[in-house]
């Protein structure tokens, strides 16, 4: 069924967060599960890792500061290496 605006918007930003964590913090690419896994251990761990690296308050949650930073222009190279 068509997602309502808020849900669709939320989905888009979830996609952006997922891409961000995959691109820059080595989150394993596992598209289907992300939205359900958002509160799961590995994802929270990656959110915390990102918040720590970028100098944000480490909450493990996608608070407004974190979402704002994710939209900021940046370099395309990962922040943690593999």
């Amino acid at each position, binding site marked *: 069924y068509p997602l309502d605006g808020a849900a669709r918007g939320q989905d888009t930003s979830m996609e952006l967060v997922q891409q961000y964590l995959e691109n820059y913090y080595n989150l394993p690419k596992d598209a289907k599960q992300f939205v359900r896994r958002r509160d799961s251990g590995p994802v929270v761990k990656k959110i915390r890792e990102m918040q720590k690296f970028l100098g944000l308050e480490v909450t493990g949650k996608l608070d407004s500061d974190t979402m704002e930073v994710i939209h900021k222009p940046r*370099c395309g190279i990962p922040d943690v*290496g593999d």
Partner: protein
Amino acid sequence: FTTFPNMPKWRKTQLTYRIVNYTPDLPRDAVDSAIERALKVWEEVTPLTFSRLYEGEADIMISFAVGEHGDFYRFDGPGNVLAHAYPPGQGIYGDAHFDDDEQWTMETAGTNLFLVAVHELGHSLGLFHSANMEAVMYPLYKSLTDLAQFRLSQDDVDGIQSLYGSPSDDTPVPTKPVPPTHEPLAMCDPALSLDAVSTLRGEVLFFKDRHFWRKSFRTHELEFHLISSFWPSLPSDLDAAYEVTSKDTVFVFKGNQFWGVRGGEVQAGYPRSIHTLGFPPTVKKIDAAISNKDKKKTYFFVEDKYWRFDEKRQSMEPGFPRQIAEDFPGVDTKIDAVFEAFGFYYFFSGSSQLEFDPNAKKVTHILKSNSWFNC
């Protein structure tokens, strides 16, 4: 700071770079200047040196691209990813790619090419991202309110020196604004030579490398500045400069290009080729120039000859070039710079300066090039 996994670094200190293509957002010379200045930032704190190639494979290949551009990391349109670069190594490694869906600028508005280039070239040299928000290697783009104040943070310096060491063991590495090397000590060095000299609205500008001194005859004050702090798009290491007072414009020359500068603004439509002034293709650069406001003539000095340009007709005069020594007796060495003051022409050649009386047609004094610096 961090380095890439397995710490890739260049095994040599003389590196080459090539600007493969250009963005339509900026004049080519502005891109050249931004890249040159970005490399110089890293050069100043390491033993590394960078020389430019214009064809073939260089260690660091710099290019602009949009979307999919031949590597596995497509660009994403305006915003978000601005650029990326690869760690030291062969082929694509060491290269830096800039997303041409960004609006590249030389100012603080838009995305400043110089700032992003310093970051990306840090990657090309082996630095990974830094969690230090003051570091140039911090992943998020941060503009500056005053580009002239740009400095590497200690974190950046520690990072790059962990890979390559410092320029030389006994040279303390600048991590905060340090007066450039031409500060008073070098300024009064009797061996000092100059790149170009021009008047500007009653003052005199003495250009040297990336800086210039600004002398006011009214207050006798002497200021010292980065060229880029006044005119970010002008190159350093200039060849010549002169003022046409009737146009309130200083013309600045480097290589086969020149710029028109009015006050703090580089005029639109520059750089232009020096050959648009009427020089033959054999002339690749000029050494010095001066414009006589009374006669409305501009003199261009190239090696042992000079041309005369008619400012009214805006064309080079027939019967030139002529030998400098014939019409300026006693001025028989290669000239670095020249300007006019108090009715005299002052010709600079290395550490010497010849005061020439154009009426008596003779050299009246021989001075040191830095005689104007109240040493």
